[in-house]
């Protein structure tokens, strides 16, 4: 074949595929064009995403905590808006949505004109009726009944769901892009701009399980976009609903504690299942209305919450740090005994109601003084002077090290998205703060009774006392127990890092247990208010002095057992008139008594025999 011939042949060979393409083009555009035109212009075949139902949350006896309820939501389809200001006026007449808010909503999604956007959630029935009458004139607006989150109790552990924010949406989209192959629509956790997402608490922590997976349906939409019919129902991919969740919480106990929490005061009460570390009750006051966040939150409500001086949004169990007050004497005792600084029967400075160091007087809570005490008695009476004197013999780094070794400064790792660390001042910290180390001793005297710079969350104090109740076995606290109806390994607890050991010798531990038992059960003990006949209650009270003028924070931290220790109770009430002994301890006592009378008999019951 000559060169020219070859080129001629090649030209023809390469022309062939182009001709085939033109032939197909002719077929689709000319022969079958009318068909496709009809599909394109009058019948949009669309993939409709079917959103899963969010998993519900129940307490350990299957009592509902977070459930789904139907709600009517108002949507807008921007592509069908003819006169935006007219639509905005209409909405504004009926709902608290301003023209600017609506414009902003549409502008943010301007590249997706056929993306439905949620305008307002959970309309009242009257409003729906009122607006529905005129809806014919606004083809861009429509109602849809969907599931809305409803919380049966206001609390700080479930958290709440809310409209996905722009940044959260982009993050989930990015994650989805990375995970999937573009050309196949896989079943996945995915969100639209209208979705709700767990914002805080368990709703956020376990979003993946609660959310479920999207399903899909092919639908045909007619020219008006209203008459939707299924295109081919054999192609449906049903959504996989979120998993229902069982918590360790006992709602009955939780309710009781909510009911006895001092009215008008702030604080936290935490009850743990001693053996496992599971949270039985998690109370933080004040609470706020969780259900407000499932609706379109009024800006007023939000700004009220944020500006409220009692910080109702703050979860006081994990996010508030307090000086542990006299509950800290347990730490001092362990440090002193395990480092052989004193012995259990060592008598230190005689308590005369105050203690002189340098030119400052440190006062014991009992003005008349406790006299000369052994260590055990000093714990029982919560004598400050004994611990003031002890503090002079204990080096600051020793305490710091003990706090580290016993997980008091790190986060406990409870299954909630946010948690604060504890704080204990180091020598360096003081040097930076005070300029020299010479003044540390004065501060150390205060630290010995848990005042001053040391700060712990109620959860940390609770976890520590729980470990004492467990003979030194430290358990990571948790709220999530298991999923319902899913073959899943998701159970909490068992992992290696969830079980640790306190660095306290068994002898010291036993001494501490005895001493805090005496503090509750012997007359003269500060925790006597927590005594419950029929139960072995152990505990330590605390009263954290505040800046002049305001009432102290009152503490009780302890545990109660019958054959073996069963529940660990931590009570803290902020700015409460009185002392830990005469306020917090009786509160703990009432909780333990209630547990003994009402909760304990129902323990061991399974889901099937619901006690209610």
């Amino acid at each position: 074949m000559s060169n020219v011939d070859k080129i001629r042949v090649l030209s023809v060979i390469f022309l062939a595929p182009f001709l085939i393409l033109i032939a197909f083009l002719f077929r689709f555009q000319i022969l079958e064009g009318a068909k496709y035109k009809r599909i394109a212009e009058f019948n949009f075949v669309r993939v409709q995403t079917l959103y899963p139902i969010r998993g519900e949350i129940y307490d350990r006896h299957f009592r509902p905590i977070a459930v789904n309820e139907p709600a009517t939501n108002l949507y807008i389809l921007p592509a069908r808006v003819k006169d935006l200001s007219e639509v905005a006026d209409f909405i504004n007449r009926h709902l608290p949505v301003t023209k600017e808010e609506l414009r902003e909503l549409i502008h943010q999604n301007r590249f997706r004109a056929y993306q439905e956007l949620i305008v307002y959630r959970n309309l009242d029935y009257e409003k729906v009726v009122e607006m529905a009458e005129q809806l014919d004139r606004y083809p861009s607006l429509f109602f849809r009944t969907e599931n809305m989150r409803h919380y049966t109790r206001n609390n700080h552990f479930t958290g709440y769901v809310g409209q996905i924010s722009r940044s959260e949406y982009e993050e989930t989209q990015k994650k989805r892009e990375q995970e999937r192959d573009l050309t196949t629509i896989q079943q996945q956790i995915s969100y639209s701009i209208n979705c709700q997402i767990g914002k805080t608490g368990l709703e956020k922590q376990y979003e993946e399980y609660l959310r479920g997976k999207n399903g899909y349906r092919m639908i045909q939409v007619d020219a008006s976009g209203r008459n939707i019919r299924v295109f081919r129902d054999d192609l449906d991919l049903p959504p996989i609903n979120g998993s229902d969740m069982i918590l360790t919480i006992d709602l009955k106990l939780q309710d009781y504690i909510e009911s006895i929490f001092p009215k008008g005061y702030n604080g936290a009460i935490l009850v743990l299942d001693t053996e496992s570390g599971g949270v039985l009750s998690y109370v933080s006051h004040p609470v706020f209305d969780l259900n407000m966040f499932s609706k379109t939150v009024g800006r007023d409500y939000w700004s009220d919450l944020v500006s409220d001086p009692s910080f109702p949004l703050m979860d006081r169990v994990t996010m508030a740090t307090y000086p542990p007050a006299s509950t800290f004497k347990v730490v001092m005792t362990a440090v002193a005994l395990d480092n052989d600084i004193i012995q259990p029967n060592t008598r230190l400075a005689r308590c005369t109601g105050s203690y002189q160091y340098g030119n400052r007087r440190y006062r014991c809570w009992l003005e008349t003084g406790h006299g000369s005490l052994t260590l055990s008695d000093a714990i029982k009476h919560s004598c400050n002077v004994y611990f003031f004197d002890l503090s002079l013999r204990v080096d600051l780094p020793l305490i710091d090290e003990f706090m580290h070794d016993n997980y008091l400064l790190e986060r406990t790792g409870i299954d909630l998205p946010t948690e604060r660390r504890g704080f204990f001042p180091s020598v360096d910290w003081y040097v930076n703060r005070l300029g020299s180390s010479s003044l540390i001793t004065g501060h150390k005297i205060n630290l010995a009774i848990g005042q001053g710079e040391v700060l712990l969350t109620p959860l940390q104090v609770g976890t520590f006392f729980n470990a004492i109740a467990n003979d030194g076995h430290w358990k990571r606290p948790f709220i999530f127990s298991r999923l319902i109806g899913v073959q899943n390994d998701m159970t909490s607890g068992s992992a290696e890092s969830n079980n640790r050991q306190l660095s306290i010798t068994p002898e010291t531990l036993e001494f501490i247990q005895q001493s805090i038992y005496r503090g509750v059960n012997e007359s003269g003990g500060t925790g006597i208010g927590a005594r419950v006949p029929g139960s072995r209650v152990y505990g330590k009270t605390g009263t954290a002095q505040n800046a002049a003028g305001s009432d102290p924070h009152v503490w009780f931290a302890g545990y109660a057992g019958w054959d073996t220790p069963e529940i660990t109770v931590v009570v803290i009430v902020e700015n409460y008139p009185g002392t830990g002994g005469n306020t917090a301890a009786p509160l703990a006592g009432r909780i333990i008594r209630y547990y003994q009378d009402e909760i304990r008999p129902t323990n061991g019951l399974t889901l099937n025999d619901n006690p209610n």
Partner: protein
Amino acid sequence: MLILMAIGVIVIYSALTFQIGDEKHTSNEYLKQITWIIVSLILFFIVILIPYPLFDLIIIPAYFISLAMLLVVLTMPQIKGATRWIMLGPFQLQPAEFAKITTILLLAKALAKPYITDMQILFRLFAIGAPPMLLLLMQPDLGSTVIFGVIIFAILAFSDLSDYWLILTISPFIAIATSFYLPAFIIFIVLLLYVLHKLNLAWITIGFTAVFNVFIYFFMPFIWNGLKEYQQNRILTFLDPTRDPLGAGYQAIQSRIAIGSGLFQGKGFLEGTQKSLNFLPERHTDFVFSVIAEEFGFIGSMLLILIFYFFIYRLIRSLKAITDKEQRLAIMGIIALFTSQITINIAINLGIFPTTGLPLPFISYGGSSLLANTLAIGIIMKYLTEKSFIR
């Protein structure tokens, strides 16, 4: 040739101004594309101006650099289920586009050696062609792998390889393609036997080739099971598009609706309705043809296809002026590259080929593809101008 480039540039410009957003909002991608066009044209002239010996010297290192880039890309985070891009700050580099060209050049160089035996040709072909193809399959980039195959066959067909070896090399792939459908396979075997017989080969050779191909037929199920599920899905959906309209077939169906609804004269510039519905997620890249077809109708899209053919035709014509064997082979490879890329992309848009990520040369948005394609034309232009220097 430069006129053709200009046409390409105009089409890119028009394609990119209408394709995103509605009439109120236009995304700024078209501005970026213009920047890329300028960069590409600069590169185009650089390639032409480089002295030929120097150009000859870069071929081998360039091949290994592109292999290295293909390796690097495997370590990158996945985008849309595959790793195709190297992130360089704000830029995303798609090394597959450059690997195609460097491989063509090296293959041409290696196979153009005089007095080369059939075995040597096949060995060199394998040594040079296999590494980039393997790396592409690992991404996985099915589309580019297919393009590579077409390029290699085109170069092979134009090389000194004897007809028998050519058939022996190509026939297994046809066997694979037809193994999905038994009657097609039988027709293929009969045709194969006929062609071999015509070549006056020994019966034993003919028998061996036939048995070899039949063996492949039975071996296919094992290879099939080795494919990733989504690749299997794509191939199955290609064979039966209604099988999965929600999944892989979705884009194909939507693209065809867009094309079909364009009718004879199209809906007009900026008037396309399908594109704004998000039916076509890749409308400014891989599915740009469907936007053109919807807005400019049969006339516009047929015109585009004819322009493309004219472009290919001009490339083929350029072979007339070139006598150097290496250059001829390289041009042949580039022609195969463009032809396969153009036709396969349009076929994907028409829904008659499985959906794989492939840009339409000079039209689709994307810097890497534009740069690489301009580079390829630059090389051919270089061959043509170089020749006149020698004369």
